[in-house]
């Protein structure tokens, strides 16, 4: 139904005499009617066509049926008259929306809302094409330059620039790094949506939330909102269900490497294809793809400081630990499972969404060359793949209406992990006292001091 708001605007522009810029629906009402008889249907059809009423459901008067929902928007000046005629014909109705303009206003970003403070009215509950994400990154850095810097990582096959955002309190002491990337697989749109949401949440709350403030002093968060930029753009413009990159193989007859099979971890051994036409094509060699190389080179250069690696995918509702290429457990498998389970529990606490935790080889399938595995083999202890909502009902085509709940619950899981990392490497970390969290911070500092003894 809310999709119909788009139709209102275009209809408004077509009506002569109305300003095409400012469309007002002050006190317009939407009525819900279920016609009971054929006579009622006829009367309603007549009413709609004579008064040129805006039908929200169904879209055409000829589709009005007895026993089926009817939603009509009535312009404010006609509301009384229409209700009178409905009463006269014994047609019962319910007011679905008492003021359409109020609803329109609520759904648009306004001055003074926290979104505007962070990045000027960006809508985080929609999917954004790459152009908008590039602009968003620039805005985020501009508006939060005291804690955010944007950095160049490398170029994609089609020569596009890859950027990551570095978020953290500037500091003289050495900081540990948490890396998060989204969008390795083009069609998993909820993943870049989460990276953007994550950045927004951190920046909106770091001044007031003691937990976030604490870890931003000790840690730098590096966020790569879209790793497979070429593929992502291709999924917007050509093929929504595209997965791989857009590199050219076989004399220009075949496209794309599965970037998550292209890393140097048992590369080419299992769960892959050497055939370019496969969706699991692992490339011509480990790190054969510019995108893989850009990420791997960077992580290698910072590996002594990176303590946690998170890579976001969809779908399946899983938190996956190394490895995919073997069932042999990693050296710190207990820690990985423990922290993973805590993260999953925090996530489930929000809306009841259930996540499974375990190694890829055991709970999903075998695969080699994944970024998560490679990162662990070079010595970064906490390495997780998130497979976000859902479980296959919409799969890759997760409705935008689920962006918010998915991101909210995932936020809890990710901050649980970041929190753990923060406490593990900075057990005597500074505690920030704010008026709203004095009690919490006092308890925290008492506990921390106590454990340090």
């Amino acid at each position, binding site marked *: 139904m809310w999709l119909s708001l788009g139709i209102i605007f275009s209809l408004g522009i077509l009506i002569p005499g109305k300003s095409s810029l400012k469309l007002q629906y002050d006190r317009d009402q939407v009525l819900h009617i279920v016609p009971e008889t054929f006579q009622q249907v006829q009367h309603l059809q007549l009413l709609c066509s004579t008064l040129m009423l805006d039908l929200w*459901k169904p879209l055409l008067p000829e589709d009005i049926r007895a026993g089926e929902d009817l939603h009509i928007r009535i312009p404010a000046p006609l509301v009384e008259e229409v209700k009178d005629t409905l009463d006269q014909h014994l047609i019962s109705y319910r007011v679905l929306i008492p003021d359409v303009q109020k609803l329109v206003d609520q759904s648009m970003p306004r001055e003074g809302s926290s979104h505007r403070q962070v990045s000027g009215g960006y809508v985080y509950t929609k999917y954004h094409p790459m152009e908008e994400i590039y602009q968003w990154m620039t805005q985020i850095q501009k508006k939060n330059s005291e804690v955010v810097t944007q950095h160049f990582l490398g170029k994609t096959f089609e020569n596009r620039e890859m950027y990551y955002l570095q978020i953290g309190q500037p500091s003289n002491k050495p900081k540990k790094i948490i890396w998060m990337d989204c969008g390795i697989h083009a069609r998993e749109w909820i993943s870049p949506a989460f990276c953007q949401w994550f950045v927004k949440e951190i920046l909106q709350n770091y001044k007031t939330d003691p937990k976030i403030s604490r870890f931003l002093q000790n840690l730098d968060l590096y966020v790569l909102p879209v790793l497979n930029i070429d593929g992502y753009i291709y999924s917007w413009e050509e093929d929504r*269900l595209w997965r791989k990159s857009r590199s050219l193989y076989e004399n220009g007859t075949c496209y794309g490497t*599965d970037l998550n099979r292209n890393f140097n971890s048992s590369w080419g051994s299992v769960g892959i294809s050497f055939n370019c036409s496969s969706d699991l094509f692992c490339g011509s060699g480990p790190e054969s793809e510019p995108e893989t190389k850009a990420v791997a080179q960077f992580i290698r250069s910072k590996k002594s400081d990176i303590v946690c690696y998170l890579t976001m995918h969809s779908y399946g509702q899983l938190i996956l630990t190394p490895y995919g290429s073997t069932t042999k457990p990693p050296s710190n498998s207990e820690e990985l499972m423990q922290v993973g389970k805590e993260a999953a529990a925090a996530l489930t606490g929000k809306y009841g969404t259930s996540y499974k935790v375990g190694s890829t080889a055991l709970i999903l399938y075998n695969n080699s060359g994944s970024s998560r595995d490679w990162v662990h083999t070079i010595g970064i202890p906490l390495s997780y793949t998130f497979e976000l909502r859902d479980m*296959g009902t919409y799969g890759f*085509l997760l409705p935008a*209406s689920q962006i918010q709940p998915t991101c909210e619950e995932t936020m809890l899981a990710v901050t649980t992990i970041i929190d753990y990392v923060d406490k593990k490497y900075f057990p005597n970390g500074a505690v920030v006292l704010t008026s709203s969290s004095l009690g919490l911070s006092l308890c925290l500092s008492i506990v921390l001091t106590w454990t340090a003894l």
Partner: protein
Amino acid sequence: ALIPLLAPSSLLQNIPESGHKYYLQFSTEDYRTGEDAGNCLATVLYPKKKSPPVVSIKCSHTKDQKEIHEEDNRIYQRIRHQSKPITGSNIPDSYGNIEPALEPVWALAVAGSSSIMWEKSTETLGYFLAQVKSVRQWIRKDNFTEFDYTVLLHEIPTQEMISCHMRLTWLPGHPLKVKHFCASESHSVDEGSGAESGSAAAPAAGKGANF
């Protein structure tokens, strides 16, 4: 030996000379609403020689037959009341949206493609319905509804999108009739269903589509 798998409530038993037997316990939910729809206990035996698995399954239902029939009828009426033959494409669309008028048609696609997936899946290959690429209704003289679909099945673990053509016929109270033909790139053989399916063993089919 019985090997406990990490997935909750499932066991794998290797029976030498015979095959792999899986013991499964799982819950089901309504595809549309997410409401709990009951639990199932099943065994699946994959024989050593490649042949269809042997399945035994028992489910508890939370909905009674009357409720199911009423819902089926509501869907049926929504389809029959359209003034023109239904057509559609990209359901859901790129943004995950499904037009309300096309919901019944999507629901039928979910049920029908589950029958394709039932036939295609193996011990190592599984499927999800990724998207309905196109649908076209054929008007019949009798009361049955009939549709031609092109559906995309997401194949795990190959990650491929398999395009299948599906011809589906339905009347509430009758099992769904599904004929399919799937194109496949990775395998050299295209496969399809010759005769009608609507296997009574499948939890989804048997008593008509349960939505």
